[in-house]
């Protein structure tokens, strides 16, 4: 049975290794700051007793004030899963570092988030619209998009 790891276990380890990586009040749901995202992700992937090598999904949710990017990882060896998230503030040009260097499966999913939400991912090998055409005005899955 895949055990969904509670946030508290991992939060302690991450706090000692990367102090200040969590946002305020972010320890309970593993809310990581955008600049320490890559360090935290690499730690979760490479640490032998964590070894989260399989990325289930990358997705974004629009909460008006910010876009929350949610990642779920699974460790095939230890049969555990974990969800961590990060926020991209601002609606004009939100950016986020890309995790395609760690998990290649994030490639198309991050392009989809760019296409439908407008969050740009720095370090992505080929960031352009995937489902809609070049010249489409706006980003449809935003809450304030109308027609």
């Amino acid at each position, binding site marked *: 049975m895949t055990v969904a790891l509670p946030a508290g276990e991992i939060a302690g380890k991450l706090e000692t290794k990367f102090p200040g990586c969590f946002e305020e009040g972010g320890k309970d749901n593993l809310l990581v700051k955008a600049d320490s995202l890559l360090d935290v992700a690499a730690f979760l992937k490479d640490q032998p007793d964590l070894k989260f090598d399989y990325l289930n999904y990358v997705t974004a949710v629009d909460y008006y004030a910010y876009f929350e990017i949610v990642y779920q990882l699974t460790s095939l060896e230890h049969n555990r899963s974990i969800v961590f998230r990060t926020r991209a503030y601002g609606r004009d040009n939100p950016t986020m570092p890309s995790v395609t260097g760690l998990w290649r499966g994030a490639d198309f999913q991050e392009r989809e988030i760019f296409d439908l939400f407008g969050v740009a991912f720095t370090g992505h090998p080929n960031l352009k619209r995937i*489902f809609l055409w070049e010249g489409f005005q706006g980003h449809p899955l935003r809450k304030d998009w109308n027609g």
Partner: protein
Amino acid sequence: MTTTQEMTLRTEPFVVNFGPVHPSTHGVYRMRATLDGEVILDIEPVFGYLHRGIEKLAEERTYTGFIPLTDRLDYLASMSNNLGYCIAVEKLAGIKVPERAEHIRVIMAELQRIASHSIAVGAFVNDCGAYFTPFLYLFREREKVLDLFDMVCGQRLTYNYMRIGGVSQDIPPEFLPALEKYVNHMTPFLNEFEFFLKQNEILLARAKGVGILPNQAAIDCGISGPVARASGVNWDLRKADPYSIYNRFEFDIPTGEAGDCYDRYRVRVEEMKQSLRIIGQAMKNIPDGPVRADVPHIIRAPRGEAYGHIEAPKGELGFYLVSDDSIAPYRCHIRPCSLINLTALREMVRGWKVADLIIIFGSIDITMGEVDR
């Protein structure tokens, strides 16, 4: 004495466009392939020709009203899509499913797996060159599965059968005898089908060693389903993270070693046999009782989020739901197993020829409804 002079020809790579309307690609999939003669240097996939905005439509429908839209995701495996979505909503709202409904759900999901793999295997062997004969054999058997579904819910392709908390209606009394007849007929048919194709020279020559996906690349790219299992990744959600009542049944998980097209084909055929085994166990001793939990049709899920995933025929299909205590989901994201399985296509085809490109693409088995949503 004559000396031969070598003449070096200067060649240039050129770009050929495959699709979106193409007889061999499964659905409206487009590739711009950079070729050097017949050898493929690079491909660039282009998606979106079937992008219907299902995730945006989810925010306008109620939880139950979204179930018909999930049918049209991977339209060859509608029961599995329904099941995945219902499991996600049940996790979100904390609804328990009655026993009879769980048995029925497992039977439907496994029958759907057989139907979906029939098309996958048939189309793959079709691409290899067996022009339609194995495809039509499997299609004929798939029609029997569709007859069973027709008996239960009246539809042949997009069922809208599962509901949140169970299934929409009970199985009629003639269903179980017909199911038993089907299971008894299908097992020898699969053996006979395999007998014709397993050692076929042409299939072996075209599929063995072609389009190898290494084990580490499969995990890295997030590949799931028969494609990953053929590369040696021993991960099946029915065993690793059992949902519904799969932990009560005995079945094996076929895995391959080489990760080539032939292994993917063999894994799918073996999975069909294991599905028949599960159905045989599930249809014994189905308890009586309600087929749907006592929940209203318009569900108001509590605030929170949930991710429910199942082992669909094509891979790990998951639904990530965020609820803000209203009758419609705030956000519904669908983890598209077909789109993520396509991440590895680019390096799987480098160095192969155009004919192999079609076979490798066919062996991944995608449905554009799920890629594009």
